[in-house]
């Protein structure tokens, strides 16, 4: 099943959606993250379908509230619906989002097989966000949020977050 990065989002709503950041990684917008699955005009305003990254992600409630206030500031009432299927995948993070993440100091997710080799096989594949060296190793399977693992660069010694691949 292929899923479009921006499925069923009405074009004139994009500028408002673009103003809503992810509360945990503020350089990313909700569009970069791919959590908006639908945004359509209704008789009363706008209806948005939102999908969680991880089931327990505490950012979801905040994102819902932030979306409502972003639309409210334009005089539009937004209703939010949380949907679970299809399950969110890191493939939905946009190219621009990956680049912004890297600049922010978080290594974006690798492909599924490279991710497995780095997280399970102890292979040195995740590029350091500072010096770009792939001579890096995992320090902790769990990082500062559920979606990240903690890595350290063996060349420049800097620790950094890696956004785990989720498919």
């Amino acid at each position, binding site marked *: 099943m292929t899923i479009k990065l921006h499925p069923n989002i009405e074009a004139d709503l994009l500028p408002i959606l673009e103003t809503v950041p992810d509360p945990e990684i503020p350089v990313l917008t909700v569009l970069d993250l791919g959590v908006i699955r639908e945004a359509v005009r209704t008789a009363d305003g706008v209806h948005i379908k939102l999908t969680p990254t991880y089931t327990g992600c*505490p950012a979801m409630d905040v994102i819902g509230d932030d979306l409502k206030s972003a639309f409210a500031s334009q005089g539009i009432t937004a209703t939010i619906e949380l949907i*679970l*299927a299809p399950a969110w995948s890191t493939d939905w993070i946009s190219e621009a989002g990956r680049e912004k993440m890297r600049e922010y100091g978080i290594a974006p997710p690798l492909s599924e097989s490279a991710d497995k080799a780095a997280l399970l096989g102890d292979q040195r594949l995740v590029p350091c966000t500072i010096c770009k060296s792939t001579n890096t190793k995992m320090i*902790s399977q769990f990082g500062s949020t*559920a979606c990240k693992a903690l890595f350290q660069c063996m060349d420049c010694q800097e620790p950094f977050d890696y956004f785990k691949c989720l498919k």
Partner: protein
Amino acid sequence: MEHQSLYQYLLSLGDNALILGQRLGELCGHGPSLETDIACTNIALDLLGQTRSCFQYASKQLDGKTEDDVAFLRKENEYTNVLLVEQPNNDFAFVITRQYFFDVYQLMLMEWLSANSADETIKAIANKAVKEARYHRRFSSDWMLRLGDGTEESHQRLLDAVEALWPYTQEFFVPSEAEAWAASAGIGPDLTSFKAAYYNDVEALLEQATVPVPENPYFQKGGKQGRHTEHMGYLLADLQYMQRTYPNMTW
């Protein structure tokens, strides 16, 4: 009637995750190291997320209930979690052993539900949870090996934890009324069919961790029917404190 049965089945899914999540949450700021502290609380967060998905769906089965009612306003004998997940943290070997014994079961369950459940919402919940469960099992398996095959001290502690928690493992495979209903409706698995594969996996890992498989033939059960161990009351006192003290409070 069908709503009531589905409600009860969702409780059985959600309660295990809720109570284990609460236990792991107790370690927040108290883990043995920063990395393990973060790992335990991250796993707790995933489990609470799964709980919320189950309870949001459960509350729709009964008129006038919210997910908070389901989580916070039931009495002890209305919680249907297995006894294993309410066992106290004692030490890190207990935390890991309890987690590992749970993770092996939970992954089997979520794999089945995400592939086969006749209920589309449960299938969708499991589809997300299965990825989390896989990662949790990896974490707890790694630590079982490190503790078991580590120092004399860590080996002894793991041995004690495995001996103490082993009697709680069989309850998974004795279906409650709700679980039997779900199996007959194609919504949930026939849990008795998981038993052989579960013990195959667990016994293979214990061997690798240089810990003998306990010989105790006596197993404890009753949690699914609301008959809990003495630890449950204290856990609920913490869990329910806010809603009992400030009824109907919201964030």
